[in-house]
């Protein structure tokens, strides 16, 4: 208001000055015409009229121009910030004008108001976008996660938090790998895919089926299909979006197959435990009193019970392979020691058939990266097969050593009937039982199928060479530990998880 008062008094004083000057001018004019030049009254009146008209024309024009200067500046300021006339330049406020302070004040007020309005508009727009985004994302009954360039979760909807039983605060700002502990049925895991598209693509999407997720504090794993959308150029930094489609119920119904097998295995194991227990007692306490014939039977009983144990374990492993639940943990192991253990465990079964197992194991082999239990089953199955198909021959040779490719190769050779060329291709199929009829040889044909699955999961290679009438040689390779560790350089070398069909933990490789 001070500025306004100042402006009014400025206008008043300037108008006063103008009017005084005007009066002086007319008076001086009259005096000059009358006394100095001595014009007659008629001419004097005429000159005064002309002078008055001139002053009445010029002075209002100058005054108006001068007095409206502030209005013009304010008008220019308003036009400058108005969206339709934004090309009007900003008023030059440095120029000294009438009411300079008032104009400065008003124009700065106008600018402030404009910026406030602008902010309100922007906030409202953002709020509406956020509202829409949150509303849509949270109304979506599917877990939805948004990741930034560092795989950090920057958004997770309500469904996500419900699904993985964590609060928003426990999820936002965390690495996706610590939020979602996922396992995949194939080698193409989410982290591998993401790593790849980050280097090679701008926009990419992919889906995975039967992904498993461990939820803390729950025994049953979640199972779902996963969809991922990657966009490196997303303006809001939403680089990767993940949507989870839960199928825990239907997928675990598929797993009931294993549930049944697990039950059957439990029921079968109890009598086997007892049989082996009683045989154990008899062997220890009766052996010396038995006739050689009865001692032989007892020996065979022992071997048979062991064979049954192997079969039960095979059955379980096969059902795990089929349900993608065979999880191998690769550790550094001494290969010769494993071969020794298997050979010594199976020698009884060979002996009751009158067969001896000869070993030819290289001494200087490097350590290997294998799952001890899984690979034990492979060697045991190959020896078991060799025993079954040896016929009248009494010799099995197991060899192990480094091959040309730098892999540790193990072969089991028998000198039995051999396999006709035509059936070799099907040997590793499920339930395939060579060309011999059931009455000649026991077994279910699961052994080779399982062995192949386990060797494949080790990323080894299994093969067979056979000539009818001369016997067969089955061989497989495993990777030396150093080589495996090299491949997994960035990972946790002591615990490399593998599945049959390559059931893989998402990443042993992530860093938080």
């Amino acid at each position, binding site marked *: 208001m001070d500025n306004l008062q100042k402006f009014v008094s400025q206008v008043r004083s300037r108008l006063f000055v103008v009017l005084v000057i005007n009066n002086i001018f007319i008076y001086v004019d009259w005096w000059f015409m009358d006394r100095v030049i001595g014009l007659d009254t008629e001419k004097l009146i005429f000159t005064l009229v002309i002078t008055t008209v001139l002053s009445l024309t010029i002075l209002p024009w100058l005054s108006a121009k001068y007095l409206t200067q502030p209005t013009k500046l304010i008008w220019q300021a308003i036009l400058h910030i108005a969206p339709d006339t934004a090309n009007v330049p900003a008023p030059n406020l440095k120029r000294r004008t009438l009411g300079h302070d008032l104009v400065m004040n008003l124009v700065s007020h106008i600018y402030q108001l404009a910026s406030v309005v602008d902010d309100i508009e922007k906030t409202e727009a953002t709020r509406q976008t956020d509202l829409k985004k949150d509303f849509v994302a949270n109304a979506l009954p599917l877990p939805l996660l948004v990741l930034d360039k560092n795989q950090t979760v920057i958004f997770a909807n309500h469904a996500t938090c419900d699904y993985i039983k964590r609060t928003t605060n426990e999820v936002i700002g965390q690495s996706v790998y610590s939020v979602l502990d996922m396992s995949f049925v194939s080698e193409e895991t989410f982290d591998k895919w993401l790593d790849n598209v980050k280097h090679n693509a701008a926009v990419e999407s992919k889906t995975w089926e039967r992904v498993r997720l461990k939820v803390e504090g729950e025994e049953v794993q979640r199972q779902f299909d996963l969809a991922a959308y990657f966009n490196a150029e997303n303006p809001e930094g939403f680089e990767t979006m993940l949507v989870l489609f839960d199928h825990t119920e239907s997928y675990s119904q598929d797993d009931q197959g294993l549930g049944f097998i697990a039950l059957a295995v*439990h029921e079968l194991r109890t009598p086997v435990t007892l049989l082996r227990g009683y045989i*154990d007692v008899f062997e220890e306490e009766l052996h010396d009193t038995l006739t050689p014939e009865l001692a032989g039977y007892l020996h065979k009983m022992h071997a048979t019970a062991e064979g049954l144990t192997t079969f039960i374990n095979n059955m379980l492993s096969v059902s795990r392979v089929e349900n993608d639940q065979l999880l191998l943990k690769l550790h550094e192991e001494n290969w010769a020691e494993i071969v020794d253990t298997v050979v010594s465990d199976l020698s009884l079964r060979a002996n009751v058939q009158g067969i001896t197992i000869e070993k030819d194991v290289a001494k200087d082999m490097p350590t290997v990266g294998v799952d001890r239990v899984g690979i034990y089953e492979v060697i045991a199955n190959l020896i078991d097969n060799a025993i079954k198909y040896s016929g009248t021959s009494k010799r099995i040779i197991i060899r192990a050593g480094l091959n040309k490719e730098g892999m540790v190769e193990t072969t089991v050779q028998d000198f039995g009937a051999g396999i006709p060329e035509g059936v070799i291709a099907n040997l590793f199929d499920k339930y395939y039982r060579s060309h011999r009829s059931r009455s000649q040889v026991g077994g279910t044909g699961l052994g080779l199928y399982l062995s192949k699955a386990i060797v494949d999961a080790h990323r080894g290679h299994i093969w067979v060479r056979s000539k009818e009438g001369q016997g067969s040689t089955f061989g497989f390779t495993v990777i030396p530990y150093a080589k495996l560790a090299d491949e997994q350089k960035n990972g946790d070398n002591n615990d490399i998880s593998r599945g049959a069909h390559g059931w893989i933990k998402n990443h042993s490789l992530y860093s938080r």
Partner: protein
Amino acid sequence: MKPQQTTPPTTPTMNNGRKVLVVEDEHFISELYVRALTKAGYDVSVEVDGQRGLELAQTNTFDIILLDLMIPTITGIEVLRKLRGPGAPPLKSKIIITTNLEQREEIRADIEKQADAYLVKAEVTPRELVEFLSTIK
């Protein structure tokens, strides 16, 4: 290290001073285990019930506890949790899970973390069990 016994493990009379609790509801199996363990000089107690097995174990008088998982009243997993879980008082006994039950990998891994060993009964004969226990100190 001083050997625990100087006589062969099959001599039934010699007590090795170690106490074993067998929590097992399959009578024929516990019978075989008791026979083999007693012969090897162990002082063996048997319990078929989970709850009573837990109470016995909590007396902390056993060197070794053989714990089956499928047992009546409370399961072996529960017993294990109560003996080894957070807040449980210290227990001198070594706990060895003896089961024929097949677990999912991750459940088995969880059990193995709390127990001292995990055996599948069908894969060890009583004699092998005794041999194994002699390695548990």
